[in-house]
């Protein structure tokens, strides 16, 4: 932060070595970017709070919640996509996509994620709004903060914090809804019948939301967030940033109505841009690490410019190149198509295609065979040789299935399934959306050989869907 450390030092002592958080009282503002921020807030919060209640029919054998992370049974559902633990690479893909998309957007438009969509920004914005409704705008809040403790101050502060806690509790409650059937958990809340795990999570997240959005605020962006720091690496001179047009604005100074604009800049030093800033910086000092590019200073300045009949855009979204070109009197176009646009775009498309392929090619059944290690083979009294295998059948459909297992590459082979009940190789039952595990014995009359390559093939008895797995058949001791 650009706050002066010497100011802190006045307090002296060890604590004086550390920068005190200066309380920021963002002033209310109207304008295009403020409206965009309201829309972004309503949309993102709406999705967050309501999405767990969306339903998605998956038949009788799977949950009907559209977005659900079912930890006890290790499944994640997202509309028609379902992820098993072994498909966690899809999550890796999503993280890669999210990171590259962040780089891509940042290189073109600057830190729009920070300014409009980041949960830290959205919840802080919401909390500041609550603060303003209860305690009044910037000056009123400042005054209240400095005022002695009266009943009025006390009730206002308590009300604010109470509403903050309610919002935090709803936030935490919604988070938990993503991990269990939302409507039934929602109802059990009101019956005071929820598990201690749920309560621990709600307690922890309520506390963290309250702390982060109520108190930590811009400190998170400045000191804790790694993305804020490395997003500057995606910036170049063609990236849209929020900039103060110093050429036009300087020399700044107060201005009386009717005075001439000759020989001075258009900035009347009203500090409207500073007063509305949620991170407490002065944008006129140039691009700063703390700036989350929310555009509220643009709105504030434009409103002032309208009042004093000057053109808008003293503070504006612009690129460094564009601003420099304007100074020279030339015309510079926005250069959206730059090398990094292409390579970020290429990586995005590439990873996106891989993920699309893995989702489309997701097999409804998978087979895994594990050859017994001890004993490797068994000599039967008839002279036949027997090998044991553990068979795992992954039924990824939402229907109960029976599968037929056969073996290729081994003549006159018989498969015996070792299982409770009367299970044969033609009739291996696997419940919907689960893994069936069987131990099987394959016996065959073969001339002894150390290793024979064989192949197991499983076929869904109700359709033509099949899957195969390569394995071995051993009938003689020795090294391969």
């Amino acid at each position, binding site marked *: 932060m650009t706050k002066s*450390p010497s100011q802190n030092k006045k307090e002296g002592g060890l604590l004086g070595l*550390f920068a005190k958080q200066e309380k920021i009282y963002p002033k209310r503002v109207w304008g295009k970017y403020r409206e965009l921020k309201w829309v972004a807030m309503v949309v993102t919060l709406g999705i967050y709070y309501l999405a767990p209640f969306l339903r998605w029919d998956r038949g009788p054998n799977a949950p009907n919640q559209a977005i659900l992370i079912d930890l006890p049974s290790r499944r994640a559902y997202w509309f028609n996509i379902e992820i098993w633990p072994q498909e966690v690479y899809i999550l890796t893909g999503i993280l890669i996509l999210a990171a590259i998309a962040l780089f891509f957007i940042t290189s073109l438009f600057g830190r729009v994620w920070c300014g409009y969509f980041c949960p830290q920004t959205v919840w802080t914005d919401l909390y500041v709004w609550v603060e303003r409704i209860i305690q009044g705008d910037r000056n009123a809040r400042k005054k209240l903060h400095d005022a002695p403790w009266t009943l009025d101050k006390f009730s206002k502060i308590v009300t604010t914090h109470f509403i903050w806690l309610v919002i935090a509790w709803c936030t935490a409650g919604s988070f938990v809804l993503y991990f269990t059937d939302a409507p039934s958990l929602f109802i059990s809340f009101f019956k005071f019948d929820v598990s201690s795990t749920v309560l621990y999570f709600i307690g922890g997240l309520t506390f963290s939301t309250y702390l982060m959005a109520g108190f930590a605020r811009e*400190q998170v962006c400045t000191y804790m967030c790694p993305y804020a720091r490395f997003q500057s690496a995606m910036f170049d001179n063609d990236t849209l940033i929020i900039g103060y047009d110093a050429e036009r604005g300087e020399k700044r100074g107060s201005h009386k109505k009717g005075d001439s604009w000759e020989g001075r800049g258009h900035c009347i030093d009203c500090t409207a841009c500073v007063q509305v800033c949620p991170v407490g910086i002065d944008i006129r000092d140039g691009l700063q690490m703390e700036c989350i590019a929310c555009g509220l200073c643009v709105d504030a300045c434009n409103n002032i410019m309208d009042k004093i009949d000057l053109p808008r855009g003293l503070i504006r979204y612009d690129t460094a190149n564009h601003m420099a070109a304007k100074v020279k009197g030339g015309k510079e176009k926005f250069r959206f198509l730059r090398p990094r646009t292409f390579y970020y775009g290429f990586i995005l498309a590439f990873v996106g295609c891989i993920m699309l392929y893995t989702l489309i090619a997701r097999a409804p059944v998978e087979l895994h065979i594990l050859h017994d290690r001890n*004993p490797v083979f*068994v*000599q039967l*009294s008839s002279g036949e040789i*027997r090998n*044991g295998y553990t068979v795992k059948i992954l039924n990824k459909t939402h229907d109960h299935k029976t599968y037929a297992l056969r073996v290729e590459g081994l003549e006159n082979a018989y498969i015996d399934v070792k299982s*409770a009940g009367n299970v044969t190789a033609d009739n291996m039952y696997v419940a919907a959306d689960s893994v069936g595990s069987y131990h099987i014995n394959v016996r065959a009359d073969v001339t002894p050989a150390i290793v024979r390559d064989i192949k197991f093939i499983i076929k869904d008895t109700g359709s033509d869907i099949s899957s195969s797995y390569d394995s071995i058949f051993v009938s003689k001791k020795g090294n391969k």
Partner: protein
Amino acid sequence: MSHQDNENNQKKEIDKVSGVETTGHEWDGLKELNNPLPRWWVWVFLATCIWSVWYWVVYPAWPTISGHTQGIGGHSQFVELENSQQEIIARQQTYLDKFEKASFDEILNDSELYAFATAGGASAFKDNCATCHGTGAEGGKGYPNLNDDDWLWGGTLEDIHQTLEYGIRAGNEDTRLSQMPAFGKEKTLNRNEIYAVVDYVLTLSGEKQRETYAQGAQIFQAQCASCHGAEGKGSRDVGAPNLTDKIWLYGGDRQTLYQTVYSARAGVMPSWHGRLNDNTIKQLTIYLHQLGGGEEEINNDQEPVTE
């Protein structure tokens, strides 16, 4: 303290490039910029300190000469282990009650009980049986392979259960008992006669006949057939092995067979009655039965079921 003095005595210097003031410290011309940590960092640091003090008080933490501080929470990993073991035993109990009452047939047709039996049996096998029979029940010389379909005393669930309970030649009333005569030691047969009967026995499982075939056959019928049967197929009543198959407990070469006939074999399987509880023996029975050689109660020679 020197820092404080600096502050009082010197005016703050502002670095021209970054616009940040310096701390006044200088090393070989390099000056340190003053970018202070946020103050809440101090509070977080103090909070972690307080947490660690709390931890030292509640949990075992510091080594002492004779051990370590115990902590007032009474936490110990041994207690934790005991608790989780108790938890497991309690979880097993829900199955054990059902398992105890269930018949073999019921267990074989109930996937839960079946899984309980095979899992428990497998672990009990590794604890108690693997010493002789091997971890995979593959056996060894003198110790039968329990995966195959060749049983000395029978391979039905009841047979296996009986063997497990009372053992073989284990010295109790109900144990399985038989004795092969030591034909050579006891001078019943001479060397040539033993070789003749060995060669005859080898023909039963497909070896070529030798010139002593007739003599061997005659000796076999006189000395061996009473237990091993006229055709050499053995008898489970006396644990006499089938001599016509491909499986040999002590080895199927001529020399080993000579030794077997000369000094006889009498393997011992301990009785597990009283050493393992009834449920464990029951689990072991199911586990061994499903290893691959278990026989049905009514031997129908695995006639394929056609509809």
